[in-house]
């Protein structure tokens, strides 16, 4: 992994989300070739034509990822029928453990409209870089490992352009305002 890009990514998020908004929209997002939780190939083209909410995590994550996924269930319900026009995608930054099968089983616990993407480490890395997502493997004493990762949700318009992020832990009114704006575009 390119060390400099990684550090740039940390600095970007380290300074809170404001700089992300300030970036040119074209700077976030890009092509990817992954597989969904059913093992079907997916690319950035599958998301075009509808707005998307994309976030990155892993199934071993004990708190942030399940909380975000549960929140999405609530947000989609609040959006009503408009939610059916939104792509919601959970991308694993731990493809070594998160096989399509693992993603499929895990996602059965959440709103069934949420899709899970995983793939080869190189392709996951390409997508993470395109989305300015920071992630890093951290060894744990018992032999396992955890993943540090950016926890924000990326909102993209129907043309695949970055619109704005939803930060982790915000109260529902802010994400709902962002999602309604996104759906009204």
């Amino acid at each position, binding site marked *: 992994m390119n060390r400099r890009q990684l550090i740039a990514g*940390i600095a970007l*998020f*380290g*300074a*809170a*989300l404001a700089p992300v908004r300030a970036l040119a929209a074209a700077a976030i997002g890009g092509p990817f070739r992954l597989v969904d939780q059913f093992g079907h190939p997916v690319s950035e083209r599958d998301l075009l034509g509808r707005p998307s909410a994309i976030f990155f995590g892993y*199934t*071993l*994550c*004990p*708190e*942030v990822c*399940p*909380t975000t*996924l*549960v*929140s999405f*269930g*609530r947000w989609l319900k609040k959006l009503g029928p408009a939610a059916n026009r939104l792509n919601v995608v959970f991308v694993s930054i731990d493809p070594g*453990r998160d096989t399509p099968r*693992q993603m499929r*089983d*895990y*996602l*059965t*616990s*959440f709103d069934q409209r949420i899709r899970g993407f995983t793939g080869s480490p190189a392709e996951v890395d390409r997508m993470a870089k395109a989305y300015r997502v*920071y992630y890093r493997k*951290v060894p*744990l*004493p*018992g032999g*396992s490992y*955890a*993943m*540090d*990762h*950016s*926890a*924000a949700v990326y909102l993209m318009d129907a043309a695949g352009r970055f619109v704005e992020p939803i*930060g*982790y*832990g*915000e*109260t*529902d*009114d*802010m994400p*709902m305002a962002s999602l309604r704006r996104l759906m009204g575009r």
Partner: protein
Amino acid sequence: MRRFASRAAVGAALLVASAAQAHITLTPATAEAGHSFAGAFRVGHGCAGSATKGIRVVLPPAVTSARPQAKPGWTIKVEHAVGPEGKDRVAAIVWSGGLVPDDEYDDFGVMLGLPAKAGPVFIPVVQTCEAGESRWDEIPSPGTSLHSLKRPAAVVEVIAPPPLAVIGGIEVREGWVRAAPNSAPAAAAYLVLHNGSKQADRLVSVSTPAAARAELHNMRMDGGVMRMRALEHGLDLPAGGDAALAPGGNHVMLFGPAAPLEPGGKVELTLVFEHAGRVTVTLPVRSADDSGGGGGEHHHGGMR
């Protein structure tokens, strides 16, 4: 246990004292933390001799949920507002359309979700009578007595449940395990430790038959990045101090749950302290939806 009993007695005394006056009171006057409260607002008198036509109770945000009991002959209106985490909450309940003569009393039933933390919860009540109204909305400032007030709000005292276990002066409290999604390779357990002894101690390790391995971890949000680390030296417990394993911070990471961790389940956890020794507690598995999800800071987040 002794503390539990004595606080309940204080609460009971408070109820008797208040009921003897013209206040609107909550009965029972105490509730155990973590349990929903089923009780009633008791109207003992009218307003200076005039019959009561209605009451309006104003619920503070600390009240997490509220449902009035159906009351024949009365119209009930529930007023909503946006609460913590953007969730809808009940801000007030209004009973109207009935009549309680001055020399009779009546109860207005409610089921309330109360905070997990011990302490009083004050609920202002406006009593409307055929002639005039009484506003029971005074809240004592810290250190002053409810009895010094002319128009005290209704109050329910939330009492901390007894500790799950006590060993060598260390109390284990408020433990729970976050229900895990299907096939999740790990789950988090939380608890609060209070070191009542004069000696500093340390939670060194944890183990459980419910998972292949348990480790003490810390997670934190660092400018939008979630970071998780092992607490390789355990968790310090200063003499007389608390250490919390709670969402958004320290937790016990359970790797490889032996069986699905579903709400209603139980997990046995053995804690090993440097000085106090080892103790085993049984923790309930809870859904994250109990607390409304949303994020880092709050108590139990969760899963359906």
